[in-house]
């Protein structure tokens, strides 16, 4: 009898392994292996350089910028996570939504936002020039390493904020309180109690941010200028512009190898038992800052976050309703005027083009795809997070495999998808699914990394108490674990949603023309000259921002309303 029971358990366990494994095998390993195999069957590129010469420079720069970016992101993100977790202040909910938005923006739009703010004629320079009577813009920001780092901080701070912040807010304050009563200074409490307790989420966030920076493409290309190239940029250049597939494949493998090492390192550092603590529901621990020190601290941190993360968004939105153009091709003394012309123009197909995208349709497509991505990646992510609870080499190997898609060259994978699923794209109906599947592949590691620490932190006793009270395994999950995991699930859902909403690279490769998404529509505008095109790109970006902000706010409300 007992053997029968364990056999059925084994079968269930096997089936649960099978789903995420099949997903990764079919949509990750297979296309990747196919494209790299194909590349090595092709003639070598004309460059004739030694391959090490091709690899070394971008590799060095990639590691350098990724390390610096990650460090800066943590520097901004950790205090922000602490303030968000511990203090109540007016506008907190809004700030939390706004700080998530950078994540969704296509790089081309971010570049425009930064330009509107920090460019030669951006607001900052205009203000400084006016203030100090300068003839040349004092801030030379674009096309520098600084721009790359700032953009990475802009993009990735939300990862730290969400992944670490959600766990931080659930930490039992009594632990820190008891350490305080034992005579520890606040600083020592932070170092000896709080941060060690947050080790898992901090590591997860660091790994995610690092990998994101490591494979950075758009930011380097658009904001870094021509002087900088990461591995990913080099891969894209080689594959797409020089048609040198072999070098591109070698670079992809190098990148993959680095990802593997980073992941193994992460696993090694993160090893050790996860401490299960009675989870506290978020919102329980935050309070108003009371002392002037606390107020100052909260104020400074919020200000930094607003300046870094929110002002470029505001600049973008402002730009979508501002007309800076002189009327007649003459520049003389123009004043900015408010206009809704760009939004109106979105609704007209001026050229009767077959590729015209009505904004509502783009919103609907993006929304539909993002919703599917949320479902797919959360189902797979939940199964995986639970599977990763068990021990053994299989778990450790799977843990690494899960992270690899993040560190894989998007260009290479995109080409692999085309090679393997090209025919599928042609088939109406089925071809549609490739885009959400590709997005899910990107979102999946995020979801797993967000869910896993939360799953691990649920005390087993709660589940046992529920089953003793008569709850079946499904009921235990649904009625006890899920409500406790709700916050982490919501964070994952937001990540999956925003990743999908903002994804552009894979979408252009894989989307059928019938289903253009918002970023595709944005790109169609900004790739042509003309004030209306630029304005429409800004307007479409603002729509993207607002759709996402509304969705995130709704998700958050859902989570808090039921708590």
């Amino acid at each position, binding site marked *: 009898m007992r053997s029968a029971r364990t056999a059925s358990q084994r079968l269930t366990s096997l089936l649960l392994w099978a789903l995420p494994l099949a997903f990764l095998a079919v949509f990750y390993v297979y296309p990747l292996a196919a494209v790299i195999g194909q590349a090595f069957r092709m003639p070598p590129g004309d460059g004739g350089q030694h391959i090490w010469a091709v690899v070394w420079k971008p590799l060095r720069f990639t590691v350098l910028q990724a390390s610096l970016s990650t460090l800066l992101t943590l520097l901004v993100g950790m205090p922000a996570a602490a303030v968000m977790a511990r203090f109540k202040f007016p506008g907190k909910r809004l700030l939390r939504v706004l700080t998530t938005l950078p994540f969704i923006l296509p790089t081309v739009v971010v570049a425009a936002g930064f330009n509107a703010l920090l460019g030669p004629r951006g607001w900052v320079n205009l203000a400084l020039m006016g203030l100090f009577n300068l003839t040349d813009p004092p801030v030379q920001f674009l096309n520098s390493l600084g721009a790359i780092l700032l953009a990475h901080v802009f993009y990735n701070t939300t990862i730290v904020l969400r992944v670490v912040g959600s766990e931080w807010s659930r930490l039992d304050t009594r632990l820190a309180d008891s350490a305080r009563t034992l005579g520890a200074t606040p600083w020592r409490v932070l170092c000896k109690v709080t941060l060690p307790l947050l080790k898992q989420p901090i590591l997860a966030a660091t790994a995610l941010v690092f990998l994101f920076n490591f494979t950075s493409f758009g930011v380097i290309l658009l904001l870094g200028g021509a002087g900088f190239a990461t591995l990913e940029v080099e891969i894209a250049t080689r594959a797409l512009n020089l048609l040198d597939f072999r070098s591109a494949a070698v670079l992809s493998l190098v990148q993959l190898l680095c990802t593997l090492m980073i992941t193994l390192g992460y696993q090694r550092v993160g090893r050790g038992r996860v401490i299960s603590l009675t989870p506290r529901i978020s919102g329980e621990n935050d309070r108003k800052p009371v002392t002037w020190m606390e107020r100052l601290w909260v104020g400074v941190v919020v200000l930094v976050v607003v300046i870094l993360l929110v002002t470029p968004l505001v600049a973008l939105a402002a730009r979508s309703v501002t007309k800076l153009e002189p009327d007649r091709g003459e520049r003389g003394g123009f004043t900015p005027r408010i206009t809704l012309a760009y939004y109106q123009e979105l609704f007209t197909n001026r050229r009767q083009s077959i590729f015209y995208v009505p904004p509502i349709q783009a919103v609907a497509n993006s929304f539909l795809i993002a919703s599917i991505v949320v479902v797919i990646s959360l189902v797979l992510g939940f199964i995986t997070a639970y599977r990763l609870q068990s021990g053994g080499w299989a778990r450790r190997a799977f843990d690494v495999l899960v992270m690899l898609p993040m560190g894989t060259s998007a260009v290479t994978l995109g080409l692999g998808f085309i090679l393997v699923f090209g025919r599928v794209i042609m088939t109406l109906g089925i071809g549609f699914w490739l885009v959400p599947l590709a997005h899910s592949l990107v979102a999946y590691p995020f979801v797993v990394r967000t869910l896993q620490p939360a799953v691990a932190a649920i005390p087993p006793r709660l589940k046992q108490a529920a089953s003793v009270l008569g709850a079946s395994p499904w009921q235990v999950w649904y009625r006890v674990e899920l409500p406790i995991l709700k916050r982490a699930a919501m964070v994952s859902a937001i990540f999956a949603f925003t990743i999908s909403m903002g994804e552009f690279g894979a979408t252009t490769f894989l989307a059928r023309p019938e289903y253009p998404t918002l970023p595709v529509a944005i790109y169609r505008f900004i790739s042509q*000259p003309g004030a209306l095109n*630029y304005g429409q790109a800004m307007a479409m970006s603002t729509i993207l921002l607002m759709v996402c902000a509304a969705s995130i706010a709704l998700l958050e409300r859902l989570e808090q309303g039921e708590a």
Partner: protein
Amino acid sequence: MLILLAACSPANAPEDARRQLTIMTHDSFSVSEVVVQQFESENNVQLVFLQSGDTGAALNRVILTKANPQADLFYGIDNTFLSRALEEDIFEPYQSPLLADVADEFQLDTGHRVTPVDFGDVCINYDKAYFSEHDLALPQSLADLTNEAYRGLLVVQNPATSSPGLAFLLATVAEYGPQGYLDYWSDLRANDVIVVNDWETAYYTNFSASSGQGAQPMVVSYASSPPAEVFFSEQPLDQAPTGVLAAPGMCFRQVEFIGILKGTANLELAQKFVDFMLSPVFQQDIPLQMFVYPVNTNAALPDVFVRFGDVPAEPARLDPAEITVNRDDWIQDWTEVVLR
């Protein structure tokens, strides 16, 4: 999930009842709905356009899948990529009768594996207001750009990542020769030329006459950009805010081609489509859709192109075969001189 997995084996793709003709294109491809409908109803066929990234990405896709082609035709290959594509032997030759209306200068492939459709000139655009405000004379040649007067005023694109960037590099190669162009570029560098990776950044972030309000009054763009600025302005303009430096040798002409992909099951229909693309209906639709010029001499230009457009009389020229052989070396050498 089962449906999805089933969908993964390409053999299972069901056939659509109505015939489909699939055209792989780059992202910049565009066409009017009525034009598409005309061809569809005349031939009882559904046209499917697969936009697959920029020219390089789309060509990549065609080359990677040449054993198992995903489209019947490929539109968008230009003369900078032409020889490379021909080397891959991916096209089915077809000589359209309508080529009689196309100037010889566009018919770069004598084997007719590809058919020219449109052309555009990559030229430096300038900010008219800036030059008049600063009382600055317009550069009359590539050599003028190295003058102190224009220090830091020009933004170009990285030829390794940008199609107009490559075209402009080729213009300098045509002007100064494979031996001299690097000296010219080191002079340009000494004169603080700005290099960015893509057209979007160059135009909308750096160029002072665009909506981005950048710092450089000169940008490498297209000869058709001024008409586009007029067409896409917020209110009617009687003058374009930007102009084109179209002096001899300063522009590089890009010709775009369509080719029938080997292995197509719809050869006859594909040939009809090539004819259709050369017909005046399609050719006259081209300028406002893609902001390039039609190759068919019988095609009438829209008013905005007639009034604000400027076709350079003597663009720079290079043999496509020479481009293919040297392209990577030129780009790499350029990278060493300009970026390192």
